[in-house]
């Protein structure tokens, strides 16, 4: 079948088929869509703009990472091996993030090497999980705020592009809400092996046009699909 014929058939079919299955989540604010940071995050900082409260050993690691980055060596963040960036780093890079919203699950689909993250609504973390790069995310709605709780991350990643370290005790809580058309994500980091106290940073995302199509990125092929020319 030629695509044009398929489209004609599709247009006819769409008139008679209303899919209840595709309904997303009428009971909550609609955070679905493709989002991208309002500004790149060179280094995660606390809400009052400070370096997070690193414990002495962790501070030494961070200073080493800063020096490495200055010398052009990013071996600390896994990017050069095409490994996942981990949490919350993958939420803090300047690449589109698609959110699919269903009553039972929020899906974060990253352009970054096509990685997905699922946040299961009103579920508990299983108690027998292996660690992973992106951890295990469960979520609940608190009024207009989606609270996503992520645990069980491995210690092979850093928290942000500047190389803030973490341990396998990392616990990340994100609070997403719509603010003036933007999506705000207040991220609280708790990792008492690395930081003396929990700390919070804020990321903001703007929405890309509704007809934006996610592009395919394949790190190991060093390829990013070209944007359509429209011709």
């Amino acid at each position, binding site marked *: 079948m030629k695509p044009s014929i398929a*489209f004609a058939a599709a247009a006819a079919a769409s008139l008679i088929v209303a899919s209840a299955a*595709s309904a997303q989540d009428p009971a909550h604010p609609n955070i679905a869509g493709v989002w991208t940071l309002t500004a790149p995050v060179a280094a995660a900082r606390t809400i009052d703009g400070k370096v997070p409260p690193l414990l002495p050993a962790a501070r030494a690691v961070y200073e080493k990472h800063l020096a490495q980055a200055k010398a052009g060596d990013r071996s600390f963040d896994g990017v050069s091996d095409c490994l996942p960036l981990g949490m919350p780093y993958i939420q803090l890079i300047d690449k589109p993030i698609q959110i699919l919203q*269903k009553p039972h699950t929020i899906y974060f689909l990253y352009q970054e090497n096509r990685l997905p993250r699922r946040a299961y609504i009103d579920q508990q973390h*299983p108690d027998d999980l*292996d660690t*992973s790069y992106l951890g295990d995310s469960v979520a609940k709605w608190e009024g207009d705020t989606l609270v996503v709780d992520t645990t069980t991350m491995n210690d092979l990643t850093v928290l942000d592009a500047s190389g803030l370290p973490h341990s396998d005790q990392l616990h990340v809580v994100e609070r997403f809400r719509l603010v003036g058309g933007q999506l705000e994500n207040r991220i609280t980091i708790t990792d008492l092996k690395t930081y003396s106290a929990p700390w919070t940073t804020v990321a903001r995302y703007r929405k890309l046009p509704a007809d934006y199509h996610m592009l*395919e990125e*394949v790190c190991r092929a060093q390829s990013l699909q070209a944007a359509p020319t429209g011709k």
Partner: protein
Amino acid sequence: MYLPTPNRRRIALAMGLMGGLVAAGAADAQAPRRNLNNGADVTLALTNPSSPGRPAPKGAAPPNPDMHDLQGHWWTSEFKPLLGPALGVPAKLKPKYMAILEARIRNKNKGIPEADASTQCWPHGTPRVMESPYPIEIVETPGMITILMETQHNVRRIYMNVPHTKGLGESFLGESVGHWEGDTLVVDAIGMNTRTFIDDEGTSHSNKQHVIERIRKIEGGAKLQIVNTIDDPETLDEPFSYSTTYHWRPDVRDQEYICEENNRNTVVDGITTAK
């Protein structure tokens, strides 16, 4: 470097199956072997099909009978190393491309398979990505049906009731658009680059490849069936069709699949071994 957790064993097995790396394994040698075109040339031996997915265990949530709700987890019960008009029968390739397929099969049987998408952590291309021996999840949202694949963290987006994008940039999975014809989801995919093979054995395709999938629930939703039709005026003398079925698997909880980590290690009998 890392202990082989159950998760990593699952990864290693997937890579073996999808990469044709277990073709000469001991278990395989006991099974009947077909050669390409069923000829006598054993250097053209084909890797046996397998049955990776199982039905849902007892006590799992019953299938959803709504024919237009394909959502949830599915796991194919078929793994076909060669995709063609029938099991073990190759596509009607033009002579140049048949020669390439034969060369790839001979190299595989010599234990030096040509590096393909599996071993390089690339997406497998459309429709091969649907042949993954690991679970998939389908999500329906307004205007889009998304298929999340555990294998190589691939994401396939099917844009509903729209034409293909003008000036589309090539990609591994191409662009898929879909519409419903009665109870069948019809998906039309184009725009695949030439960095993948159609199947594990190494059937070639060009960037003119055109895939149409007819996807529907069968057996009251206990299974999902996809009938694929592949056309490629560059490589094929005629289009061919085949079907793949998947079990409804509401019990599956998604696992992180990181090929990029795993392929630092070697695969021996489906178990990861650190280099």
